């Protein structure tokens, strides 16, 4: 009898976890970070309701996109905590993409698996480092690493709404091939209008 109730309890926890994950995924359904990998120019397009934040040093560049300002503030806090911790223990030179990856992955996974907190942080992180790697960390701490030398034209993170993702990928193929301020602005306005996004910005 005791065994049975324990099994039911576990199942409840897994259900709660699945719901929490799904809810966070839904909140990020129309938030995306896309890396445009053209031979002429490489840049990042970020779309969502709030302005993303960008960090970096000589070793890497990192973009954090979130569903709301509260989510984004958590990402910023996390980044500042990591950078100050590394600078105090070692030095600022030792803040590498893999250090950020390790801390973010652990923190986001911890937040997702902590069932005392009902809502996960809706954050997507993309890191490009000097070794030519593009690292994506999703809201649950899962990671994907791509080589920038690969043939992939578009590397997308977020956009968990499948219909939105399909249409967005078609549109991102039309993204300007060169970094031209006017062309990018026009393309940004087009995405904002078509997908009813409050903010689309470009990071070179």
């Amino acid at each position, binding site marked *: 009898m005791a065994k049975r109730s324990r099994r039911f309890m576990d199942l409840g926890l897994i259900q709660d976890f699945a719901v929490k994950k799904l809810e966070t995924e839904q909140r990020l359904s129309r938030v995306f970070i896309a890396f445009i990998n053209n031979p002429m120019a490489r840049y990042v397009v970020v779309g969502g309701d709030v302005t993303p934040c960008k960090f970096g040093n000589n070793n890497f560049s990192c973009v954090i996109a979130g569903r709301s300002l509260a989510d984004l503030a958590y990402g910023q806090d996390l980044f500042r905590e990591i950078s100050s911790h590394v600078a105090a*223990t*070692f030095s600022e*030179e*030792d803040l*590498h993409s*893999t250090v950020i990856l390790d801390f973010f992955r652990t923190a986001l996974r911890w937040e997702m698996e902590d069932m005392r907190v009902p809502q996960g942080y809706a954050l997507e992180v993309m890191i490009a480092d000097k070794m030519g790697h593009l690292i994506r960390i999703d809201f649950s701490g899962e990671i994907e690493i791509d080589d920038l030398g690969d043939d992939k034209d578009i590397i997308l993170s977020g956009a968990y709404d499948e219909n939105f993702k399909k249409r967005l990928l078609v549109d991102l193929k039309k993204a300007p091939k060169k970094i031209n301020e006017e062309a990018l602005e026009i393309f940004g306005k087009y995405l904002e209008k078509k997908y009813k996004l409050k903010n689309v910005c470009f990071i070179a």
Partner: protein
Amino acid sequence: MKRELLERVLHSVIPRSQILEHARNGPKSASRSEKRMHSGTTVLAFRYADGVLFAADRKTSDSYLGIIDVDSYKIHQLSNLSIIGCAGSVGDIQFVVKAMEQVAEGFWGQFGYPLSILGQANHLANILRDFSFYVWPLEVHALIGGLSLKGEFEIYEVWGDGGKRKGDYITIGSGTDYAQTVLKANKGPIRDKKLNLKNSIDLALKAIYRAGESDNGTSDLRIATPTIAVVTKNGFEEIDTRIIEKAARVLIERERQ
């Protein structure tokens, strides 16, 4: 007059810091630090054309009157791109070197990048600072050097209280005054990185020779061949003892004339 004479005699056998402590506090009973093995030591490091060079004598002293060993290694490889050289208490040095090796290896293993030289110096400074509040602080004075992530060769001196400084040429240990004088006389070529490996070995040996002549804690060049190691863009390399012995023989011969 008597006092001056006494001080002069004392200076020739006991380091100045000991005399000052004795003058301030009076004679003290045998403490832990007096019983421990010390490497009185001359460890030096400077930049040369291809990287950084570390050199050290081989003597381990028991207090200031006994000699435990004249075959000690005071320079240790931390990673493929960094070296540490230490003066102080042997047990504390062994602890610090082990801790630093683990950190350097662990960082590389976990994050896939080498820990920067500044990062290693900061970490050591943090360890020493933490221990400085203990009843028995770590008696370590260290030099850390190697190739930084920017592609520059760096040398840091870290004191027992957690202080640190960067320099082109630095000497630590009881033979500092004598060896530093030799390096200071060559500061131009060191700063301009004009010294090649052969000239650098000769300079390092001369500095240790001078220290060995006058300092009780440094082994004489005629008795023990110093250890010399370099870090270049190709990584860590310990210089062959036969090369050092050959250069030492030439130096000793020249000094005799």
